[in-house]
């Protein structure tokens, strides 16, 4: 592409990750009282790895591959009762809020980047 949009693609991948993670965390909240339920979280494979990051920026990445996300069963926290449920509401809600903040920030960064590119493409108008 004549205009360099690779940063936007990386940010889009981040947005997708945070959206999917919200769905997983919402499931933990929904199963707050389900006997035997253990909370789950979503991780990015190679998150923060510069080599992997370089790979995703190269070429046209419309969205991350499913294999880029790994689920993890979160053993963190003691059992919350006698029914085997291990969900800590406070923990989940704080994760959800942090995730939301990251989604909002990525969205904002995309907007700013696009505005810059729009300016450049439109020659200042």
């Amino acid at each position, binding site marked *: 592409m004549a205009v360099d949009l690779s940063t936007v693609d990386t940010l889009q991948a981040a947005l997708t990750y945070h959206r*999917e993670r919200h769905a997983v965390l*919402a499931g933990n909240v929904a199963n707050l009282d389900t006997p035997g339920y253990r909370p789950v979280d979503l991780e990015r494979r190679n998150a923060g790895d510069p080599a992997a990051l370089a790979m995703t920026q190269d070429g046209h990445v419309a969205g991350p591959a499913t294999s880029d996300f790994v689920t993890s069963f979160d053993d963190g926290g003691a059992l919350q009762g006698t029914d085997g449920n291990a969900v800590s509401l406070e923990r989940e809600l704080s994760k959800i809020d942090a995730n939301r903040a990251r989604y909002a920030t990525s969205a904002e960064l995309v907007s700013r980047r696009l505005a810059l590119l729009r300016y450049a493409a439109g020659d200042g108008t």
Partner: protein
Amino acid sequence: MSTMDFFTAMEVSASGLSAERTRMNVAASNLANAQTTQAAGGGPYKRRDVVMQSVDVPGVQGTPFAQAVKGVAVSQISQDTAQPRLEYDPGHPQANAQGYVAYPNVNPVEEMVDMITASRAYEAGITTMTTAVNMAERALGIGR
């Protein structure tokens, strides 16, 4: 990705709200009938309980990631089979030959606690769903 935008997350949250509301209704019913000595079908009211179970959410395709997204549903409303509470009251119209009246096996304190925890879980579900809506609105605002 294998979920349908934010709607999957919202369905998950909605299932939680539904389940917790059922739990609240059941606790309220137990409380209301705590003194019912003559329920439909004979005998004192039997305390009811909800059994919750994780369920798969529609719109999530069969990937390993999909296994992580779970909603919840009330799989059954069971009747408590514990023995009724007997109170000695020979003058009572429902007293048996020994002078005991059978009262429901409902502990009001327990039911109140259930209502409070269900309420707390319900509010958490609302917060979570609102967050999803919030994130979707931010996405819509990209480029504006």
